[in-house]
């Protein structure tokens, strides 16, 4: 992106004034270097979002922003329903509520390295992963509806999770006001055999070692010490979310004319929140959020069972669970007044600061853990929400490194087995059904995650707490 098109607010904040139909300015949080590396499409998309009705304050792009669909990936925008605000299926994305959760293990690096192969094999055997994989749980209509309204809470009630986990999941594991009746038969059909599956692409399960602590006090409150072993799971709402995205993208495109909405880009298909279409999507999307929360809870259950095979006394307590692709009704201060806003986070993490009423007591003084996922060879980071983040982009931060080259470029540059061997040399064990998938997900295909996290920290979006590096990666 041409940096001369932006007005510099600070070293990590850049602004585009509201012109040509933009209702609000656009703000990009990134270093000069990250901006220069961003696609020009991010400029187009972040300014197009600013043209949507009822947008509040600004259209935001996080440090890992890249070219998405309508919204940039790494885009945040809040809408006021009473000011004609809209909800956009493209602003949430296809993989609704895709997210990351991190588990404590209590293991040492020595214990893991002693059993590295055994752990990798048992996790790979027990957790369905990759294209075409299916879970052992098959839901009939009644159970599907219960899952769609119950989320992780449903999984716990089914004996597929721990009750103690729920307080460490956004919305306490259950997104209220889901409307299963607004979810198509096609979406249900795609999900029927996919509960408890990890998926493919950038989704993973990793056993990770804490290799650096940036803030010892917050790390202690989060239960993180140097050299600790954690397990992180990255996946989403599977076929159900993908199909809801597909269904409503088209339905919203067709209904936009009826609502008098002029779309700057078809992918920005949206509907007023106060409309039948807007409410239908909201109800369906909330069901998909519950599906993702249930899915991560079930995978956690499978992980616990697997790890007990090797370490019979192990307890895998949940540190936290965050979602990346959502639209949530939240209370935020706008010009000194508290307002209810529909906050879209497309490839962005919620980053509530200290004192937020929705946080569990344990994180009340620290702010919420913000889990930023890496990929295979690259580090992951744990940050904390800050008071500043609440005033910046409605309590939001980045979600990952973001790709810096396409899958096609990556598969031309690398082959799967050499990537696997290179990672093995670094002590990282990979298990995946697809060599081609590994090549496309090669660490070199992603941006430098440390630069992204550094920018988020300096911009005040979230505060850096710890760095984790993978020892084992189960990859779709």
């Amino acid at each position, binding site marked *: 992106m041409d940096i001369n098109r932006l007005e510099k607010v600070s070293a990590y904040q850049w602004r585009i004034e509201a012109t040509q139909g933009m209702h609000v300015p656009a703000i990009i949080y990134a270093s000069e270097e990250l901006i220069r590396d961003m696609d020009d499409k991010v400029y187009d998309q972040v300014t197009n979002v600013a043209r949507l009705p009822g947008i509040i304050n600004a259209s935001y792009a996080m440090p890992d922003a890249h070219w998405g669909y309508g919204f940039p990936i790494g885009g945040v925008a809040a809408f006021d329903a009473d000011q004609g605000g809209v909800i956009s299926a493209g602003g949430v994305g296809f993989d609704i509520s895709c997210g990351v959760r991190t588990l404590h293990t209590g293991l040492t690096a020595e214990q893991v390295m002693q059993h590295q192969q055994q752990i990798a094999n048992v996790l790979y055997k027990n957790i369905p992963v990759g*294209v075409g994989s*299916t879970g052992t749980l098959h839901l009939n209509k009644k159970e599907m509806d219960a899952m769609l309204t119950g989320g992780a809470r449903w999984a716990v009630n089914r004996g597929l999770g721990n009750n103690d986990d729920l307080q460490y999941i956004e919305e306490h594991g259950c997104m209220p006001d889901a409307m299963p009746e607004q979810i198509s038969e096609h979406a249900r059909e795609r999900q029927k055999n996919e509960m408890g599956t990890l998926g493919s692409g950038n989704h993973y399960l990793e056993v990770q070692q804490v290799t650096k602590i940036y803030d010892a006090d917050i790390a202690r409150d989060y239960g993180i010490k140097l050299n600790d072993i954690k397990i992180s799971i990255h996946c989403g709402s599977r076929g159900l979310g993908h*199909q809801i995205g597909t269904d409503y*993208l088209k339905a919203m*495109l067709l209904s936009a004319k009826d609502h008098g909405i002029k779309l700057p880009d078809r992918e920005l298909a949206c509907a007023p929140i106060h409309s039948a279409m807007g409410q239908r999507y909201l109800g369906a999307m909330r069901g998909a959020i519950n599906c993702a929360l249930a899915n991560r809870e079930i995978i956690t259950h499978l992980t616990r069972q697997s790890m007990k095979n090797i370490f019979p006394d192990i307890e895998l307590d949940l540190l936290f669970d965050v979602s990346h692709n959502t639209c949530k009704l939240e209370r935020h201060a706008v010009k000194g007044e508290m307002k209810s806003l529909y906050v879209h986070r497309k490839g962005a993490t919620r980053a509530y600061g200290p004192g937020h009423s929705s946080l569990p007591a344990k994180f009340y003084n620290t702010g919420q853990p913000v889990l930023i996922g890496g990929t295979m060879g690259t580090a992951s980071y744990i940050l904390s929400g800050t008071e500043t983040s609440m005033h910046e982009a409605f309590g939001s931060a980045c979600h990952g490194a973001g790709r810096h080259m396409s899958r096609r470029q990556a598969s031309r540059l690398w082959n799967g087995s050499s990537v696997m061997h290179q990672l093995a040399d670094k002590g990282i064990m990979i298990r995946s059904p697809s060599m*081609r998938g590994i090549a496309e997900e090669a660490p070199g295909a992603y941006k430098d995650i440390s630069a992204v996290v550094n920018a988020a920290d300096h911009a005040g979006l979230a505060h850096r707490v710890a760095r984790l590096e993978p020892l084992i990666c189960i990859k779709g």
Partner: protein
Amino acid sequence: MTPHWEHFEHQADIGVRGYGNSIEQAFEQAALAMMAIMTDISLINAQQKVNISCADHDPALLLTDWLNALIFEIATHKLLFCEFDVAISDGQLTATARGETIDVAKHQPAVEIKGATFTELAVKQVNDQWMAQCVVDV
């Protein structure tokens, strides 16, 4: 012109583009381009047949409907396709897709496809050729 397909770059995902002497051929080639994201299409055998139909008077939206109908078949029946036969009349698409059940060891499928998007979506006639393209989310 021989009908053919290609991929085009999208930072996070992949664009699929089909060329043909008719809109039907362009749609068939776009579908092949999409399958080639998942696997090497020469590894797929045409053992099973699936019938697909969808309708939209906007040719661009008909393309995303077509690709999304295939994505649904792939996801729910765990199939990979290598041959397509498309007919379009008055906004109504009817097609057969041939392929086989996913065999992970044989096909090494790299990634599942979540949906066909409106990004870079275009169906148009250039001189005597038809071109059909969009970005798919993986």
